[in-house]
Structures are given as structure tokens and as C-alpha cells.
């Protein structure tokens, strides 16, 4: 029931003796399970009876015990109820056990295996004394830096939480306890094996636990619809019972009072009272309109369909050894109705892995080899161009300078735990990729101190004196470093955005510039992120003077920044161009195809990212979300509410020139919440909105404006959004659109959005677990989303709808026959069927065939589902199961029940057996009607089922066989002799089913029940076929042919300059040089939208790629060659319920 968590909030302190005074107040044990073996039964039963359905059946049971009312034996209710309770209890018990296991696996902290205190004491005793004090200090410092960034990612989860700001007084000294000194449970320690800490909050007080407790229970729209329908059914039940009760009242007055000769009543002859009792008696009999097994069956179907997701090999990602996981088993059919997808970018659409792909050195472009000559090479690095390796080996000075620059000019931290095993901690994956590239070409960055950088150049260890770092910021778009080589030469190395570097080059480079520009364009055209590299040798005297001024400037209080900038500008000129690098921000496999497929399925995709606008836009283009052939892509980046409103309005008017704002297409849905209908747009548009603008757009007065505009676009990208805004956007769509939303993300900053959406999907497989833990479904790759939705979701929805339609049909038909019989038995609540049949109808005779259908049915197989993404649209429009479909079901049942009652009635009326004996008796009539019913509903099921596997056939035939086996057994002599009062139907089956008359009646009713359905459906398919019908008709002749391969007409957009490869926050230069490592890293640019760090990247906790697009707009628009989907040309799908 409990377990020990590893670490919680820890304050980093620098005094080990402080630990001695620590006394834990709260144990770190967390109780997450609900039950224990003793409380299970009472607690679980109590919970189950809180469910309205179960309570209702308990109420029915009570009614059945009252002899005046009881129209059915108690066992007809008890048997199903006990079964239902048992199944649910078993499920709850396993859930409880599973939830324990899940929590056991939350332990991302690798270095701490037991409770932190033990470790701390342990480590302190053994290791701290052996450490050199400086290393000790630096370790702590660096650790802190990393922890810090870790913390920010967590902190960003909830900006509203006020930071802890208390002081700790110990031994007369005060120590501030602010955010910087706090480590949250779930953080990862890096670059150190230990640290000192004090547990502040433990166990259930931790933020993780407090947050996790608030998970809201998600329900599907079908669930909600079902609740409404169940209420309607209750109303209808009451209505039917009232009619029958009134009928009984009249009957009693007109007939019953006279019939008293043969049936005297103890309680006098009060028609009204009799009617009252009859009402309740009929409530018992007709209760099967609200079938108890419905809920259990729904659960089973969802569970089964969830298992299919877990079992799907096509959603298994072998690289991480992660299969897809349905973490929630109650939302499956909702997957078939998704209208809006909200996606994170980094780690979701992209791999968040930057690879050094190409480079241009001194006018020569290299593509990509074998690094066996270099023992320090990173084995995972792939770059295949022998020419470049040759150039390196030939000691080409430019090539060497190029890689030396990459090895020196950065803010990466190196860690060498073992000789030859280097680990880099980079602020951004871009930098990591560049330094790794240099390392593999023989320029290995090995370590750094605040004032030196050690590298191994072609096997030779060299230490460069680090004189200055001219740090990166968003305005400068470059970073430089000034070093003194071991030979004593001063040199400035600079890397940055090409446009910026080009402005600062020496004239002598103009020729090289042209060639390099060509290369840069080529790289950018492939969607790579580029950087230009340049260097400059410095004069010793000049540098000393500059250094002096630099020192003055940096100590100055006013205008410090601008003065420094001036100084930087001054020294960073007349640079000599070395070349350019190209880094690929690798999209995950299949992302553009997936997005194309999803958009063909009429799903709108919104990307919500913390990235900069340009980066986001670039990714939008490269993953096919924004397309060149779109009519327009609107950029909303206003800085005031008025601007934003105007920009949104402008966008809308250009999408829909005829403004009909007077008739805003909305309708009110209770409680004043409006629903915005979809609006028609003349073309395809995209929208990019900035974080600032989004903040305004999400304000109450403008949210409708924003929503309308955004929903008219095919694709929406929101950049620089905070996690809270992500959730707000999702909530906004949920609030005004009657649509199902899905949020997909991989990081802690996506948690809020994942929880807010109807369905949350987490990308699993890498380090971070927060997103997965709060998600409903998880898998390793974005591309699996199309399988989840277009295959699993669609099938689940289809199956659930078919199930519900059929289930209501079969139960209504079953029940309505009682209603008709009421008119012929004096409204006496006499059942038509045998009580055993009533008990077993839902549980045995019809349970498996319909479950089989809902677990195996598929209209077309998965390959064709991908081929025709349009098949997904009916789900979004709720076509397969809605109030209308339900009403049709009820009408159909009404018809069937009339056939099932009146045909046997007329066939049995005044007839006798072929030996003249009685066959129009009640028991024979019951047997005949129930057999007719079973045949009719089974044949109806056969009509519904479009995928007959061997299992289905077995279930269908088996259930019929079961019916006859059970019936003959229960009507046998033996059973009667054992319990005469329980099996009064003895001999009925033998005596009546040997009559040809009976079988002719069964045949007649069965055919009469299905013929109109077949006719209706056939004519419907011919006259106005649905998409499903068309696809299935189309596939009919080619079902057994191998499907054509998926068309992949995805091409990379033309020559867009995708931005330069700098993605980290500024301030790291200071961090690595100053020695004051503890300074909190200044957040880049605008403070409101902090760069969101994350713990999931391959490189560092701060790794977040971002880029700039210097050119902004696409330079040329190509003729679209992506196939335009033609789904709008077709009418919407109608319900084939009849």
C-alpha cells in the first residue's frame, strides 16, 4: 500500500553538520491505493451502489420482494446484479493493484535510490572529505545550475504558485530559502553524484502528489449522451408503465371486478390501488429497457479495444522498446471523433535531436564517414563525406580553424567520468551537435575552467586561455569568444546568423561570401538550420586596451548593456569567413505524412509551442502543417489588445469577405454557454499567433474573436505560449466548440494541456514521464497518432456505436413485447417469456455475439482506413450514434416487437397441435415468442456485423445452440424433479417445438423483422450512399488484393532560410566564465514568456531548440503538388441504422 519515494523538496545547503538537527515530521510514505483486503468488500460495494444504475437495480430488487408488486422472481434481477457487481469489483481490484505498480515506477531520480537522508549522510561520511575543496565547490555550483534549470521547467507548470521566500536561521546565521535552492521531487541531478539537502515536504505534501491528486475523471461524449438517453429511457419507462397502469385501472373497473368470480382480491376492489401496484409491477418487468449489462458490456468493449492499442505492433517503437499504451480504458470511442489536435512541437513533432548534417568550409561544400582514426569519436555520430575527413587529415588550415572554432566557441560543459568517455552537457541541442561534430573530426573539447578551455586537436592536448566570451543574445544573434592559443596567439572566434556575420566580414572575403551564400541557400532549402562561422586574429595591444574598456563597461552601473554591446560591435568586425554549418532539427519519422493524413480526415491541428515564432513557422512548413499552396498564412503578433483584435478581424475578413457578424452562427446551450458553429471559408488558411498576442486573445472579450478566426484556419500555430496558455487554448475550444479535442505532448509543460483536453496523449520512451503519467494514451512517436485515430479510434467508435444501437434495439424489442402483451392479459404485468429466459437473455443468449461484434468488427481494414482518411469524418459528426439514431433504434424495436408479438398471437390463436392437443397455452406461447425474438435479434446482429471472423460465427451459432441446450435442459424432466417450483415449464419445448406450425411462425417473424431493414439499407446504399458504403462498394472486388502503397507526395518546401542554429538562452557565457556560477541565468528576451526548459532532451535539461528565420516569408511559391483532398465534394454520411 505504501512505498518510499526517493527525493522530495530539498534545500541545497552547504553545511553538512546541519543535517544532524533534522527530524522528519512527515514520513515520505505515500498511500495511493484505495482499498486494503479488509475494506475492499464494503467500500467497493458502497461505491458501486452509488452508481445510479446499480442503485436502480437494488431498488428493483426491493420492489420484487414485495409480493403484491413482484411480477418476476427475485432471481431475474439478482443474477445479473451479482454478475455485474462481481465483474466491476474485479476490475476495480485490478485497477487498484495496477495503480500501485504504476506509482512504483515513478522514480526518475537515478542517483538516489533510497530516502535522501540516508544517502546524504552516507555520502557525506564517505566521500566529502576526499574531495578537493575547489572541485567540491564547483560541483555544487554546477549542480545547482542544472538543478535550477530543472526547477524552472517544473516551476513553469504552475506560474500561479508563489515562490517560497523564507529564511532559515541556523546557528545565528540566516540563509535565504528561495526558489533557487529548492529541488522538486522528480528532478534529475546532473553532473554530480551527490549533493546536500534537507527534506522540506515529504510524501503526500509534495507537489507531484498534490498535483496528481487533482486528476479529473474524463468521460466521453458517448458517455454523456448515454446518460441523457438513460434519463430519457427512464422517462419512457415511466410513460409506458403509466399507460399500462391506467389500462389496468380501466380493466379493473370494466372487467376485473366481474372476473372476481375466479380471482377474488383480498384487498377489495380498488381499481386505483391496483393500478398503482401495476405501475410498479410493470417497472419491474419493463426494466430491461435500462439494461444493467449495458454498462458492464461497454466497459468490456472499451477494455478490449484498449488492449488492441497495447498489442499493436505497428505502434511499437523498437528503438526505445516502447509499445503504445492505453493508460485510460474508458475513452476509446472518443478517439474516433477527434476534431481538434493540439500538439506540442519539440519532442513531439521533432525528435529534439540536432544533427550536424552538412558544412561549407572555405567555399567547399561537404556532405557527410568513418572516424576510426579518432579514438575519442562519438560512435553515434554519422557524417559521411570522405573528402572532409581527408581534408582534416591533410591539415588544411581552414578546415582546422573551422573545427577549432566549433570546439572552442560554445558554452558546453564536458564531463569525463572515465578516460575516453566524454559526456557533453549543452544548453541547446544545436550547440551539442556542433561540438560533437568538432569532436568527431578530431577537435575534441575536453574540459573547461572559468578561464581556460582544453581541447585535443588531432590527438594533441592543447589548452586555450579563455579571455572573453561575447555572449549570445536575441539582438546580436551571434556569439564570440576570445582565446589565447598555447603559442600565445590571440584570436576571436565568432559564430552566428549568416546575415549578421556577413555584415561584419572583411572585404577580402567577398568571393568566398558568394560561394558560401549559395551553399547556405542550398542548406536552407533542405530545411536545415545554418550558422556562419568567422574568425579574426587580434593584436595584443589592441586587445589589452579593449579588455580594459570592457572591464570598465562591465563594472559601470548605468547603460552597462549598451556599452558592452558597443564594445562587442567594435571588436567583432573585419572578420574572416570560415564557412557555414548546417544542422538538421530532425522531424520525427512520418510527421508530414501523418499531418497530411489527419488533415484529410478533417482534423484541425493546432501546434502550441514555447518556441519562437520563426522556428515554429519553419517547423510548420517542414511538417506540412503550413503549406506553400495555402491561400494565406496570417501572422498575429500585435502588442496591444487593439492591434490583436484588428489583426484577427483582418484575417477573418480576408477568409470570408462577406461578414455576417450580425448573424453570428452560434446557439445557446444552457447556462448561457454558446456554441460556435463551423464557418465556411473560401480557401485554406493558416494562422500563426504569438504568445503576447495570445495572452490578449484569450481574454474574455476577445476569446470569441480569436476562436472564430482560428477555427476558420486549417492550421494554427501558437508560439511562445506558456503551459497555462496551452491549457487555456484547449479549454477555449472545448468551451465553444462542440468538438472532441486531443492534446499531444511529451514534456512537463504539456501536462496542463494534456489534462485539459478530452484526450491526452503522451510521447513516451524518453526520459520525461510527467506527460505520459498524466496522459490517457502514450506511445513513442508522433506518427502513431494516425494509427491511433484513423484505425483504433475509428474502429472503437464504430464498434461502440454499433454495439449501442444493437444493444438498445435488442433490449427494446425484448421489452416492448411485454407492453403489447399487457393489453391482452388484463394489464396484469404478466411476462411474455419464461423467467429464466428473462434472466439469461442479456447474460447468456445475446451477450457474446454482440460482444464479439464490438471487439472484432471492422468496416474496412487498417490499410484501407489509411487509404481513405475521409472515413473518419462520420465520427466527428456523431453520425453513428446520436439521439436521432437512438430514436430510429427505438422505432425499429417498436416495429420488431409488434411483429414478434402479433405474428405469434395470430398464428397461435385458436390453433392446436397436429394431434389435437393444446398448443395455445401460455407456456408454449412464451416459448414461441422468445424463440422468435432470439432468432430475430440474432439475424439482426448478422446484418449489423460486417466482419465475420470464425470467433463471431462461433459466438452467434454458439449462442443459438446454447439457447436450445439451456431451454431443453431447463424444460426437462430432471430439472423439474429437482426443483418443481423453479422449472414449471417442463415439457414445453418438446411438446411445441415439434410442431411445423411453430417453426413456420419463427421463420415468418424472423424474415418479417429483417426484410424492411434489408430493403431500407439496400435502397439507401443505392440512392444516397455514405462514404462508408462507397468505400466498401469500391473495395468489394479488391478486398483480397494487396492494397496500394501509401502515396507519399510530401516534399520539402523550397528555399526557405530556416533560421540559424542558436536556440539557447543568453547568459550561459557568464555562467561558464564568471566563476559566480550561482548567478541565476537571465531569461532571454521578454520575461513574461520564459524559455521553457525540459528534462527530456538528449543533451541537457535546458535544451530547447529555437531558431530565427532571417528571411521570414517563403521566397518563392511552388506549384502545389500535394494532392488536394476531395472530401468536401461529398455529402456527409448518414446513419445506416435501418
Amino acid at each position: 500500500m505504501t512505498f518510499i519515494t526517493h527525493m522530495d523538496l530539498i534545500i541545497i545547503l552547504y553545511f553538512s553538520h546541519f543535517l544532524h538537527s533534522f527530524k522528519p515530521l512527515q514520513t515520505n510514505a505515500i498511500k495511493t491505493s484505495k482499498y486494503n483486503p479488509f475494506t475492499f468488500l464494503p467500500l467497493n460495494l458502497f461505491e458501486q451502489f452509488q452508481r445510479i444504475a446499480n442503485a436502480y437495480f437494488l431498488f428493483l430488487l426491493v420492489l420484487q420482494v414485495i409480493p403484491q408488486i413482484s411480477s418476476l422472481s427475485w432471481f431475474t434481477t439478482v443474477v445479473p446484479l451479482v454478475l455485474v457487481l462481481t465483474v466491476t469489483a474485479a476490475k476495480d481490484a485490478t485497477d487498484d493493484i495496477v495503480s500501485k505498480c504504476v506509482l512504483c515506477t515513478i522514480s526518475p531520480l537515478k542517483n538516489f535510490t533510497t530516502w535522501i537522508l540516508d544517502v546524504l549522510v552516507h555520502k557525506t561520511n564517505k566521500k566529502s572529505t576526499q574531495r578537493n575543496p575547489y572541485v567540491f565547490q564547483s560541483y555544487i555550483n554546477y549542480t545547482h545550475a542544472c538543478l535550477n534549470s530543472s526547477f524552472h521547467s517544473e516551476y513553469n507548470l504552475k506560474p500561479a504558485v508563489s515562490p517560497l521566500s523564507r529564511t532559515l536561521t541556523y546557528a545565528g546565521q540566516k540563509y535565504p530559502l528561495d526558489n533557487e535552492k529548492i529541488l522538486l521531487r522528480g528532478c534529475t541531478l546532473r553532473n554530480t553524484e551527490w549533493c546536500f539537502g534537507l527534506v522540506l515536504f515529504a510524501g503526500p505534501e509534495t507537489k507531484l502528489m498534490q498535483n496528481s491528486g487533482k486528476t479529473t475523471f474524463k468521460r466521453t461524449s458517448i458517455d454523456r449522451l448515454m446518460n441523457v438517453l438513460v434519463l430519457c429511457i427512464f422517462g419512457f419507462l415511466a410513460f409506458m408503465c403509466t399507460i399500462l397502469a391506467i389500462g389496468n385501472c380501466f380493466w379493473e373497473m370494466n372487467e376485473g371486478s366481474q372476473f372476481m368470480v375466479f380471482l377474488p382480491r383480498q384487498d377489495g376492489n380498488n381499481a386505483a390501488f391496483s393500478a398503482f401496484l401495476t405501475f410498479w409491477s410493470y417497472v419491474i418487468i419493463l426494466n430491461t429497457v435500462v439494461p444493467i449489462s449495458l454498462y458492464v458490456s461497454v466497459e468490456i468493449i472499451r477494455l478490449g479495444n484498449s488492449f488492441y492499442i497495447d498489442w499493436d505492433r505497428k505502434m511499437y517503437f523498437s528503438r526505445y522498446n516502447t509499445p503504445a499504451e492505453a493508460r485510460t480504458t474508458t475513452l476509446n470511442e472518443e478517439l474516433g471523433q477527434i476534431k481538434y489536435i493540439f500538439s506540442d512541437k519539440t519532442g513531439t513533432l521533432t525528435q529534439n535531436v540536432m544533427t550536424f548534417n552538412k558544412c561549407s568550409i572555405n567555399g567547399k561544400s561537404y556532405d557527410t564517414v568513418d572516424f576510426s582514426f579518432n579514438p575519442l569519436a562519438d560512435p553515434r555520430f554519422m557524417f559521411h563525406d570522405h573528402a572532409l575527413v581527408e581534408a582534416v587529415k591533410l591539415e588544411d588550415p581552414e578546415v582546422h580553424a573551422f573545427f577549432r572554432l566549433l570546439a572552442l566557441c560554445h558554452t558546453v560543459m564536458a564531463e569525463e567520468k572515465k578516460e575516453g568517455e566524454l559526456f557533453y552537457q549543452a544548453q541547446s541541442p544545436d550547440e551539442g551537435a556542433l561540438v560533437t561534430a568538432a569532436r568527431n573530426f578530431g577537435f575534441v573539447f575536453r574540459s573547461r575552467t572559468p578561464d581556460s578551455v582544453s581541447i585535443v586537436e588531432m590527438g594533441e592536448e592543447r589548452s586555450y586561455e579563455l579571455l572573453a566570451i561575447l555572449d549570445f543574445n536575441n539582438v546580436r544573434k551571434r556569439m564570440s569568444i576570445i582565446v589565447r592559443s598555447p603559442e600565445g596567439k590571440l584570436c576571436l572566434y565568432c559564430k552566428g546568423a549568416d546575415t549578421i556575420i556577413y555584415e561584419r566580414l572583411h572585404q577580402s572575403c567577398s568571393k568566398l561570401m558568394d560561394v558560401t551564400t549559395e551553399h547556405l541557400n542550398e542548406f536552407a532549402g533542405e530545411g536545415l538550420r545554418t550558422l556562419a562561422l568567422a574568425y579574426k586574429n587580434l593584436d595584443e595591444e589592441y586587445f589589452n586596451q579593449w579588455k580594459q574598456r570592457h572591464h570598465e563597461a562591465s563594472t559601470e552601473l548605468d547603460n552597462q548593456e549598451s556599452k558592452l554591446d558597443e564594445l562587442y560591435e567594435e571588436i567583432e568586425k573585419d572578420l574572416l569567413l570560415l564557412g557555414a554549418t548546417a544542422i538538421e532539427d530532425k522531424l520525427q519519422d512520418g510527421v508530414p505524412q501523418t499531418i497530411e493524413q489527419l488533415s484529410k480526415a478533417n482534423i484541425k491541428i493546432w501546434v502550441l509551442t514555447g518556441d519562437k515564432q520563426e522556428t515554429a513557422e519553419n517547423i510548420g512548413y517542414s511538417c506540412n502543417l503550413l503549406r506553400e499552396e495555402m491561400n494565406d498564412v496570417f501572422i498575429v503578433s500585435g502588442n496591444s489588445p487593439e492591434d490583436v483584435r484588428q489583426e484577427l478581424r483582418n484575417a477573418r475578413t480576408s477568409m470570408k469577405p462577406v461578414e455576417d457578424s450580425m448573424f453570428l452562427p452560434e446557439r445557446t446551450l444552457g447556462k448561457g454557454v454558446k456554441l460556435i458553429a463551423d464557418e465556411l471559408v473560401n480557401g485554406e488558411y493558416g494562422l500563426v499567433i504569438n504568445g503576447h498576442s495570445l495572452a490578449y486573445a484569450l481574454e474574455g472579450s476577445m476569446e470569441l474573436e480569436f476562436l472564430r478566426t482560428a477555427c476558420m484556419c486549417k492550421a494554427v500555430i501558437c508560439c511562445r505560449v506558456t503551459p497555462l496558455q496551452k491549457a487555456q487554448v484547449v479549454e477555449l475550444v472545448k468551451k465553444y466548440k462542440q468538438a472532441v479535442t486531443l492534446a499531444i505532448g511529451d514534456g512537463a509543460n504539456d501536462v496542463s494541456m494534456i489534462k485539459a483536453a478530452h484526450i491526452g496523449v503522451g510521447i513516451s520512451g524518453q526520459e520525461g514521464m510527467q506527460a505520459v503519467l498524466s496522459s490517457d494514451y502514450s506511445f513513442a512517436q508522433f506518427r502513431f497518432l494516425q494509427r491511433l485515430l484513423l484505425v483504433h479510434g475509428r474502429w472503437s467508435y464504430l464498434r461502440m456505436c454499433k454495439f449501442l444501437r444493437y444493444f438498445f434495439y435488442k433490449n427494446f424489442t425484448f421489452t416492448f413485447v411485454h407492453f403489447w402483451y399487457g393489453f391482452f392479459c388484463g394489464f396484469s404485468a404478466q411476462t411474455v417469456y419464461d423467467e429464466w429466459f428473462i434472466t439469461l437473455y442479456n447474460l447468456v443468449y445475446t451477450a457474446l455475439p454482440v460482444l464479439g461484434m464490438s471487439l472484432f468488427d471492422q468496416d474496412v481494414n487498417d490499410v484501407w482506413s489509411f487509404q481513405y482518411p475521409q472515413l473518419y469524418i462520420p465520427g466527428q459528426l456523431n453520425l453513428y450514434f446520436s439521439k436521432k439514431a437512438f430514436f430510429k433504434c427505438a422505432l425499429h424495436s417498436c416495429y420488431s416487437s409488434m411483429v414478434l408479438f402479433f405474428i405469434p398471437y395470430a398464428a397461435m390463436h385458436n390453433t392446436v397441435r397436429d394431434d389435437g392437443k393444446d398448443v395455445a397455452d401460455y407456456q408454449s406461447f412464451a416459448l414461441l415468442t422468445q424463440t422468435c425474438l432470439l432468432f430475430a435479434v440474432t439475424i439482426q446482429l448478422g446484418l449489423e456485423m460486417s466482419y465475420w471472423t470464425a470467433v463471431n460465427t462461433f459466438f452467434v451459432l454458439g449462442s443459438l445452440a446454447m439457447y436450445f441446450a439451456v431451454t431443453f435442459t431447463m424444460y426437462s424432466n430432471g430439472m423439474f424433479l429437482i426443483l418443481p417450483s423453479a422449472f414449471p415449464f417442463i415439457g414445453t419445448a418438446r411438446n411445441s417445438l415439434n410442431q411445423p406450425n411453430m417453426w413456420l411462425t419463427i421463420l415468418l417473424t424472423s424474415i418479417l423483422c429483417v426484410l424492411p431493414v434489408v430493403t431500407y439499407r439496400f435502397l439507401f446504399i443505392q440512392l444516397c450512399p455514405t462514404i462508408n458504403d462507397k468505400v466498401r462498394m469500391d473495395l468489394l472486388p479488391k478486398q483480397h488484393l494487396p492494397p496500394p502503397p501509401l502515396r507519399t507526395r510530401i516534399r520539402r518546401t523550397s528555399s526557405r532560410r530556416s533560421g540559424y542554429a542558436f536556440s539557447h538562452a543568453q547568459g550561459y557565457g557568464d555562467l561558464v566564465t564568471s566563476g559566480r556560477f550561482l548567478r541565476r541565468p537571465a531569461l532571454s528576451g521578454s520575461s513574461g514568456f520564459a524559455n521553457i526548459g525540459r528534462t527530456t532532451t538528449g543533451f541537457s535539461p535546458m535544451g530547447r531548440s529555437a531558431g530565427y528565420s532571417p528571411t521570414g516569408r517563403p521566397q518563392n511559391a511552388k506549384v502545389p503538388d500535394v494532392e488536394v483532398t476531395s472530401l468536401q465534394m461529398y455529402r456527409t454520411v448518414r446513419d445506416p441504422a435501418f
Partner: protein
Amino acid sequence: MVKEEQELANRPDNTAFTQQRLPAWQPMLSAGIVIPGFVLIGLAFIGIGVALFVTSRSIQVLEFDYTGVDQNSPCFKCSDPKVLNCVCNLNFSIDSLFKGTVFFYYGLSNYYQNFRKYGVSKDDVQLSGDLTNFKTPSDTCSPYAYDSNNQPIVPCGSIANSMFNDAFKLYQIINGTNTLVPFDGKGIAWWTDYNIKYRNPSITPLKNAFNNTVKPIFWSKPAYELDTSDPANNGFINQNFLVWMRRAALPNFRKLYGRINEGDYAQGLPAGNYSLEIAYNYPVLSFDGRKKVVFSNVSWMGGKNEFLGIAYLVIGSMCVFMSIVMLIVYAKFKFPEEDGVPGH
């Protein structure tokens, strides 16, 4: 190799079931199946319908209402409940031979044997010969479980109590003399009812089993004296009792009283004049019920019932008609192949 296996440890199994690739038959309502199907069903139904209709037509039925509502009715005098032990004669003539074994039924209308409280008012355990339930009949029999002296009623309950007690004798009038046409009252109940469901206690004489019990209130004779002519036809296995206890499904029903299969009448009732002597005991007028007697022969399809034949004919014709409609629709409106499916 081993390493590779470990790496794929979580890979789901590749079975047709888990991958949802089970081989399956995927039927569709295509014109090639539906239209011929309708024609076939239609023709088959018409065939069955004709057979049923012809058979039903060949069955002879003779039905007389003897309730005595009408003043001209021979039993009018008996319809007054005050008249006891009333006997009336119903005279009729048959023009031609009434073929085969003729079955004689009595029928009741507006009689709710299917009323729930009526239906449950019996004790199956008692009726299967269990003596403990002779002393303490089940509650379901109430108010016919005990009489006013608190003596247990056997057989208890409304159904038994209300057993039909009119008696019939049929005479053929040949040259002014009445010849009894015997009714065979044996074997008119279901075999299972006679042998399994209803059993007398294994006490001889049967009368002793009924000690300390009283007969049902409406009965004139106790259960063990129902058939004085045949001692084996008494108690719970009296055939008429068994027929009555198999309660009817609908408020209008007929029940078998006897078969005419002996002697001269084994081949049927010859043409001539007949007189049915009715011991009129059973009151039905109070609840506006009707009593009738029915002579009928049977066929392979049982008694006369024209509904089934007509229904088959109608539905068969409708099927054929619909298949023509469908054919027209299919030929005229079937969606063109060329713009078949979006995306193609």
C-alpha cells in the same frame, strides 16, 4: 542475438488476433445478393403460403356458442345463475362427413387465464404429489389456500378452483333415437403433464391422501372423485384437470374436451342430425364471457388457422414486388463507378 531479443522485450505478439488481422468474411448488401435473395425468399414464401392456405382450407370446423345470451338460444334458460344443475340440448346437423378423428373442444372468451395473479395461484409442489404441501399449501394459492375453517384446500389456488365444469354428451339422432357418440377423454393432455409434472401422492386408496383437506370451493366433487368411471383418471392426473391447468396464453381460448375416435365414428362424424347435451354449470356471464363448443379435425399443421397461410402469401408477394422495385432502383440510380470513392 540475445541482446536483440531483450531490446524487443516489450514488442507485442504478432498474432492475427492481437493485430486484428483475423481472416473474416465481409458480406455486403450488394445488388447481386439482395435482389436474387428477395426473389428466392418471395417464391419460397408463396409456395409455403399456398400449401398452408390449402391445408387450412381443408380443415373442417364447427363452432357453437352456447352461453345463452340470446333468448332463442337453447341454453338461455341456464344462463341465469340461480338455476342449478341445468341441462340444455344443442341440436345441429352435419351435411357431409366430418372427416378424420374429430376433436371436441370447449372454448371460453374474455376469460383471463393469463392474468398474472390468476396464473401464479397454484402450488406446483403440491400438484407433483408432495404431501407436505397438502397440509400447508403455498402462499401463492391465496386466497384459495385454506377454506373458512382453516382447512387446507387441495388442489389449492385460483386455477384449480375455477376448473371448467360443464359436461357434454353428444348424441347422433338416427331415426328419432339418440345414439351416444362417445368422447375419448384419455390422452388429451400433454404426456409430460400426465406423467411428470402432475402426480398423485403414492397412497392407495387415493382418497386417504386427501384426509384433512377440503376440495376447492367451487368444486362439487373432490379431486379423487373427478372421474367415477375410471379410477385411474382421478386426482391431479385427471385429464380434464390437466387440460385446464395448462392455462391459455390469450383471453380467448379453446381446450380439448375429448376425441371422437371410437366405433362407427372413428372415420369422422357422418352427415346427420346431432344433439349435444350440455350440463350447464360454469358461470361466465358475470364477466361478459362466452362459452362455445367446437368440432374440428386437424392436419399436419394443426388446427384451422388461415392467418399463417395468408401471411406467407402476402409477404412472399411483397418480397417479389420489392425485388422488382430494387431492380429498377439499382438499374436507374446505382452510383456511377467513375466517381466512386473520394480520393480515387
